[in-house]
């Protein structure tokens, strides 16, 4: 949601043997570029609206803050390819905290993740990896609510932070 496609491409290509573009062409990867999708939604021409499919980020322009359109997008992408080809799908969300900044309520965000879990984990036997921002003195209560709830429902939590003793050149932080 926060970065456009090409920086991600560059990042992944620095890892040996991994290419996002190739994966996309093989149908292995569906990339929702949140920023681009948002721009299309808000500045798009009239004709695009009539093409039928609502934008995944529909909730930004509507006052109702449910993320159903986003979930529909996820579901469609995962089931469109046919049940054979998607073995153990992985849904990666970067980053969930942005949805709160865009007007979604914490409940809507948690509902979205819940629906995704049902589809991805239970039905399709896959995994979900979600990135959220948080820190000790955060005053963002909505965000902390989402983070706490996610922690309760997660099988594995990776908490990445800088060192408590302060900044150090060689070791940047701890996991």
């Amino acid at each position, binding site marked *: 949601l926060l970065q456009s496609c090409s920086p991600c491409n560059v990042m992944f290509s620095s890892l040996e043997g991994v290419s996002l573009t190739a994966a996309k062409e093989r149908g292995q990867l569906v990339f929702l570029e949140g920023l681009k999708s948002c*721009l299309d939604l808000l500045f798009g021409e009239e004709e695009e609206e009539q093409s039928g499919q609502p934008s995944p980020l529909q909730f930004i322009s509507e006052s109702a803050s449910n993320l159903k359109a986003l979930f529909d997008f996820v579901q469609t992408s995962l089931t469109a390819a046919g049940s054979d080809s998607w073995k153990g799908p992985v849904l990666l969300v970067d980053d969930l905290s942005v949805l709160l900044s865009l007007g979604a309520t914490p409940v809507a965000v948690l509902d979205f993740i819940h629906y995704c879990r049902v589809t991805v984990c239970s039905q399709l036997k896959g995994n979900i990896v979600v990135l959220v921002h948080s820190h000790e003195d955060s005053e963002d209560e909505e965000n902390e609510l989402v983070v706490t709830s996610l922690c309760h429902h997660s099988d594995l939590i990776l908490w990445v932070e800088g060192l408590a003793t302060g900044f150090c050149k060689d070791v940047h932080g701890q996991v």
Partner: protein
Amino acid sequence: IVSTEEDKYGLYSNLLFKYFLAEGVVCGHELFVASAKEHPDNILKELPAPLLDDTCRNELGEEATAVKSEDFQDSMKIAWRYQNLPKIEASPMTSTKFGHYYDISKTMSPELCQSIKWHSFYLPEELSLQPKMKTCAMNSAYRKLLQSIQRIIYHEGFDGSDPQKKQKNILRIGIHSLGSMLWGDDICSSDTPEDVHSLTKFLYVLRGLLRKSLSACIITVPAHLIQNKAIMERVTNLSDIVVGLESFIGSERETNPLYKDYHGLVHVRQIPRLNSLICDVSDTKDLAFRLKRKLFTIERLHLPPDLSDTVSRASKQDLAESAKLLSSGCGAMAIGKKHLDF
């Protein structure tokens, strides 16, 4: 997006804002200046004049030699361990030159200003504009601003939509005091604002526009006035670089002898991670700024040695706090200051 948290009276953040725009003029970029308070024409008239190479070297050279002669003459007796460490050049002229230097006691010549193309958005004049953007729950001033930016990006071809335009240029956008009441946002006046998400939605869309075009943007935000701190946390997450300016004016630090050489502190809250997995982290985290007659400089904060027996408790605590944060502080003290000039 470069977000600057304004200092209390906005003096220094205005300077940074003008430096950003001035650099654009000198590099031949196109400018887009948006303000709800001061007319962009006036802002552009007050840009600092660039320092030409010769004068620049003189200005900074004088200072550098003064520092050198004081500190480096005597061999070190107490701090002998540091003698063998390479001396850090105080003068920036020897390091790779990045950007230009400006003389803030002079304003940029009108000819230079007019040599580039610029666009302005002055909110009081744009009130009649009907936004064509799809409705979304966002403050109408922000919507109009986004509309205006999107239009310039599209019509001037910054998003690559006009393949015939061979000369690629960069659009530098400066938005002054975003989030303040003058933009119709009440996040600075109430802790339960009407629309908490307006500013963050605006930033998200702005980010989208910047990502798909050849542009860079600086915004200044009166962070000290925003009641709901969660909003500033979200603004930080949505920006690429966040710098906070804390001026000493009117605070107890103004009279604190520890900070007598400086006018304020620079807090780097976020550094960009564009197109890479890691970011370029500098050695020091403590930066202070000072406004001299002609130059605004940002330097590594270094503290005078704690020699006095009668140092008061408050300042000792300050010193201890800062010492904890300074990782290579001792080295810097003995060897010299490292200047980061704008």
